[in-house]
């Protein structure tokens, strides 16, 4: 079976982001960008399914500016067979992303689409579910284990009280949680090889998909700052502060 993996290019998880001066967004100039960590887990899972002989081909897709090509090359270096870049200089909302992905799914006809559970920039946690609904497919969100057999996928999901297992009829959507796997690193020879793997470029405007924004960001602000705290020297002092100053115990 064929697997489609959707990946996103985001500000690196370790960067401390700064709100820009005119409060319209965060500073992105000269900031390190990387593959969204949950997307790395999705790519890793797709490659493992290929190594197990479950998947025959892994196609990575990314919607973003020309530079997102680097993110796709990373996926190719990790083991994806082919990449599709849907070029868009505007950041799309997740509904628009889901519609673009539906278009790509209809072209590529995968049996499974793997996505991260959320991107660490918008923290929306929507795209996989939206794609599932638009395609009419079942979904295994927040997956910590995926087993594929006999045209079905058994997905163990991380839910608030523990774990839940669902069985999905293929084709299906899976979104990855942190504990699904430990992503590998790309080796230098594989990075070189990835340069020769096919990377198709499409323009989002040519797909005929409705990507008009539905929301406006009126303002982006810093979160309220916490008052500076104090250091205490002893346990007795701590207990005293909590009892008498903060009055929380």
């Amino acid at each position, binding site marked *: 079976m064929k697997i489609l993996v959707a990946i996103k290019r985001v500000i690196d*998880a370790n960067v401390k982001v700064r709100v820009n001066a005119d409060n319209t967004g*965060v500073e992105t100039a000269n900031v390190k960008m990387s593959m969204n960590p949950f997307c790395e887990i999705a790519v890793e899972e797709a490659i493992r399914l290929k190594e197990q002989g479950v998947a025959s081909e892994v196609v990575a897709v990314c919607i973003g500016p020309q530079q997102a090509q680097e993110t796709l090359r990373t996926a190719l270096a990790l083991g994806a067979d082919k990449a599709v870049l849907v070029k868009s200089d505007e950041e799309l909302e997740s509904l628009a992303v889901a519609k673009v992905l539906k278009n790509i799914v209809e072209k590529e006809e995968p049996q499974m689409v793997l996505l991260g*559970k959320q991107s*660490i920039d918008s923290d929306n946690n929507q795209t996989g*579910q939206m794609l599932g609904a638009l395609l009419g497919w079942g979904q295994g969100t927040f997956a910590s284990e995926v087993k594929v057999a006999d045209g079905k996928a058994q997905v163990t999901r991380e839910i608030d009280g523990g774990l*839940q*297992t669902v069985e999905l009829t293929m084709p299906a959507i899976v979104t990855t949680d942190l504990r699904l796997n430990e992503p590998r690193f790309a080796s230098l020879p594989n990075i070189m090889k990835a340069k020769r793997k096919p990377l198709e470029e499409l323009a989002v405007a040519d797909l005929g998909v409705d990507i008009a924004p539905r929301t406006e960001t009126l303002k982006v602000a810093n*979160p309220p700052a916490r008052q500076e705290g104090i250091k205490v020297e002893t346990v007795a002092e701590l*207990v005293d502060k909590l009892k008498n100053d903060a009055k929380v115990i």
Partner: protein
Amino acid sequence: MTTLVIAEHNNQQAQASTFSTIAAATQLSGDTVVLVAGHNCQATAEQIAKAQGVSKVLVADAEHYAHLLAEDLDRLVVAIAEDYSHILAPASTFGKNFMPRVAALLDVQQISEITAIDSDDVFERPVYAGNAIATVKSNDAKKVITVRATGFDAVAEEGGSATIEAIEAKEASATSSYVGAELTVSERPELTSARVIVSGGRGMGSGENFTMLEALADKLGAAVGASRAAVDAGFVPNDYQVGQTGKIVAPELYIAVGISGAIQHLAGMKDSKVIVAINKDEEAPIFQVADYGLVADLFKVIPELNDAL
């Protein structure tokens, strides 16, 4: 204008997140109707009918709603969506799972994890792991929203008298079925609604050492949480995890023990009223958000703290 809230419950009773979501709904103009989809969930419906601010409770009772699968819930909500201007669910794993499906079927851009309501179409939500707050205006005719429970004080569970009305269930979905669940059993308060939380990180060293924190938690009537490092090391189950990708909490007192305070962990707890950090590394970033910091070896300090309480 009427708001529909989708209740989170376990068929016996409603979760605390449901009452916080109702609180958010009451900040919008218009009535609040709550949908309880489940199996043998009449008691839950009666419980919610007593909550303040609820005008009507709809009940969809069918066997295939027992586990609230997204592929069943989405069509049920969409079928009744016409009557509502706003559709709200808690931003728990329950709400996050099915609501984007509802939004997509209604052709609406969902607004996730709102923490404040400025008007009927302007909402505030944290982005970049809580390092920025975005104020967002929705231009969709219908607003589909998930609500961060810690952003809204739950409505009182007594004093209301909503009517209860049964609605028709939709057919079961053919794409997905429930296999089983493995739930963590705990006597302690639930993490997201606890007044006090004691959390351990990599510094705890082992799972056995968490018994120290559990003893402290029991004295304080607290829930026990953890950082991702502690979960990944296998010290505690993953549903203990507090952070951007785990649970978002805002207790009155959060005690971080052996937790360095990475951006992703702070995203889950920095709205706590009072934060205490116990760490032997005085450079640990957790001290930048802590109201009270104690630079010391946790293995010495925690037993002392236990004795002092």
